[in-house]
């Protein structure tokens, strides 16, 4: 399943980006460049070869684990991509944790206390959450929490005069390994605003999904029995109901995680987060073909992997779901 999806993906991306008008050589050299310079650079970059030849060269390199070199920086992408990817991964994980913790709990409470004030407020919040433009939300957050109240920094991953010494490039982990808890706090503060901005939509979707899924489960006989037996409510919710209500929620979480990874571009731009979304976005501006195709391929790979993990988790949660 994995391989054909990725090959298909690579084909689509490869040809689509070449269909964008705009010549990389021209863009790299800018308005200032002469025609000969552009022609020469095209030649150096191998852009004069027919498309299918370029694709086969690309695939051949890919099989040996070579993602190619960036047209713009000349650096091998396989070396260059990890810090960006790690930055996005950290941000998405953080956002996902916020989204799941708050979303799932809000959904449960809303379901349990259906039609209470909490339910109304939470669902209205969810409605606003899904429809809020991230760009606007991000700037509002900055204005309120960073500029006015000075609670959080406006941008970046770390304090520039107190930079983290990166080992894994996941700064939360790096600072913990190094025992630098002052820096951990600094890193978490940098994560908060973009994390919340990024978490808003999945949080809202997860809350709604959990709520409806819980409502369905709670109407079932065995929960009614459990409640009738006088089991502690906490137990009923978190053990009996949630376990069954969680499968559709898990699907949503998996999907959202993939979307977060690929869709962090806006958040990364507003909060100048040096992640993979911006890496690819900048590459598009420069028509840096190898970076665009490899970047998207890596995201696709993660997307497919997450879906696989979700499928495996289904089976773990509900043994009735098994794969042949």
């Amino acid at each position, binding site marked *: 399943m994995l391989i054909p999806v990725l090959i298909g993906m690579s084909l689509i991306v490869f040809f689509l980006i070449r269909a964008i008008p705009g010549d990389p*050589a021209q863009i790299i050299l800018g308005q200032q460049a002469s025609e000969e310079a552009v022609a020469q650079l095209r*030649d150096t970059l191998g852009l004069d070869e027919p498309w299918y030849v370029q694709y086969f060269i690309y695939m051949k390199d890919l099989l040996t684990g070579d993602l190619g070199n960036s047209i713009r920086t000349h650096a091998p992408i396989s070396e*260059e991509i990890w810090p960006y990817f790690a930055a996005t991964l950290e941000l998405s994980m953080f956002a996902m944790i916020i989204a799941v913790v708050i979303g799932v*709990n809000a959904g449960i409470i809303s379901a349990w206390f259906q039609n209470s004030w909490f339910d109304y407020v939470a669902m209205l919040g969810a409605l606003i959450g899904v429809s809020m433009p991230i760009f606007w939300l991000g*700037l509002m957050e900055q204005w309120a929490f*960073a500029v006015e109240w000075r*609670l959080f920094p406006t941008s970046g991953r770390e304090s*520039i005069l107190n930079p983290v010494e990166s080992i894994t490039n996941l700064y939360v982990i790096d600072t913990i390994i190094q025992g630098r808890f002052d820096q951990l706090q600094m890193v978490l503060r940098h994560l908060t605003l973009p994390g919340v901005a990024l978490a808003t939509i999945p949080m809202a979707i997860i809350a709604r999904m959990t709520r409806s899924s819980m409502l369905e489960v709670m109407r079932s006989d065995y929960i009614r029995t459990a409640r009738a037996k006088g089991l502690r409510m906490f137990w009923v919710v978190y053990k009996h109901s949630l376990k069954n209500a969680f499968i559709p929620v898990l699907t949503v979480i998996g999907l959202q995680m993939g979307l977060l990874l690929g869709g962090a571009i806006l958040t990364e*731009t507003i909060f100048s987060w040096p992640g993979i979304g911006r890496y690819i976005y900048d590459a598009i501006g420069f028509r840096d073909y190898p970076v665009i195709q490899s970047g998207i391929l890596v995201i696709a790979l993660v997307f497919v992997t997450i879906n696989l993990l979700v499928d495996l988790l289904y089976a773990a949660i509900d043994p009735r779901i098994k794969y042949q």
Partner: protein
Amino acid sequence: MMKKGFLLALTFIMLLSTALVGCNSNSDSGDGDGDNKEQALVFGRGGDSVALDPAIVTDGESFKVIKNLYDTLVEYGEQDTEINPSLAEDWKVSDDGLTYTFMLREGVKFHNGEEFNAEAVVKNFERWMTSGDSGKFAYYASMFGGFKGDEGHVIKSVEAKDDMTVVFTLNRPQAPFLKNLAMTPFSIAAPGEWDKLETEPVGTGPFKFVDWKRNDRITLEKNENYWKEGLPKLDKVIFRAIPDNSNRLNALKTGEIHLMDGVNPSDVEEIKQNEDLQAFFRPSMNVGYLGFNTEMEPFNDKKVRQALNHAVDKESLIKAFYEGQAEPAKNPMPPVIAGYNEEIDAYPFDLEKAKQLLAEAGYPDGFKTELWAMPVPRPYMPDGKKAAEAIAANFEKIGVEAEIVSYEWGTYLEKAQKGEAPMFLLGWTGDNGDADNFLYTLLDKDTIGSNNYSRFSNDELHKILVEAQSTPDQDKRAELYKEAQVILHEEAPWVPLVHSEPALAGVKTIEGFKPHPTGSDKLTNVSFK
């Protein structure tokens, strides 16, 4: 009761968990604002550099950093493009303009400890001249007419006469030669480090390279052995990429950065009123214009072009989109450039006159066309689409219906270059402060297919511009350029719109920052109060 208690408790826990992440001392927010015992300046800008090898890059973001790492043989004035000594203390030019002898500064060292000398200069030029790779050394090829062996190549040889004397022999006189040498791409790098320069630059400049986190920041530290006594004043400079303009301004307000470029014109008023901030204005070395494709009907008719020149209200454009930070243009180059023709009278905004000219050209009822608007803000054009709408509204009053068209930036340039745009907004920021870099580069018939987007071809103009290129006498050159501007005014291949003064902003405590017209600033004299 219990039900309600549980609900409240959960709500409380949720609120607490969100608040906890953010709850802590706000005393240490505003990263690095501190008391600046170590004078560290964080410069916020829109994008990251491409590479730090001066000779191979062409983008402004790279030059901003490079300018602080390297020196050139001669340098521009603090806020103009006059030529001053730098690595060369003095120079002599032969009468025929073919031999330049540079006396180099003694005791200058590269960041790696190597001596700077004549040999180093020769090696740098050899590297560029002999490469023959115009894709790699694009600026060299375009400023010095190609490479060794090419027909138009300007430099015949570069030789070290002794340890501290370099002699340049030219194939033909090139009037802007010294101005070209002062350009950042021709910075002198430590020989033998060529392969590393892209990511580990070694120059003689006021700051040394420390490290680079791609798409995030580049850190430089003070060069303790800098040849300018007592300089630089800063201990550290960090260039940070923050793509969004509003976001960058927010970071400035919180003290995460201390200086920024790319200020939205609409934010300038707010900056001026904020008592913690100050605004700077970069002296204009640009032109924003509306170009006509002079090969395409009806713009191949001079009268049509003149008519449209009468139909653009530049003052209102400046008021509406530049917040007053620009002056109306009447020539294709800004007044700071030597040879600017003061005497030309701009086409007045006069719709009646415009209609009359259109009628004379055979379009009494006007015509339909396209007006291309650039999709990205540029220093000379903060909002292309809105400016296009305003211009189109004026054109409509004389019967010219212009449909506004826009493409993604790269595509836009490419299509316009191929001559697909009937009318288009574009602009230019000068490279070396010379008239040649505006008039010849943008409007000579030789540059059709590259920067002459109007595809304007005029033999008389061509003769003047080529003559000016090889006239060493600066006064005579100025006269030639003035003549050229008269022709351009009459032929009207463009509507020159504005020369803008892009705004920068910084914290109040910054001293000694003088933005340079070229768009990249040497931070040697900058310090905090």
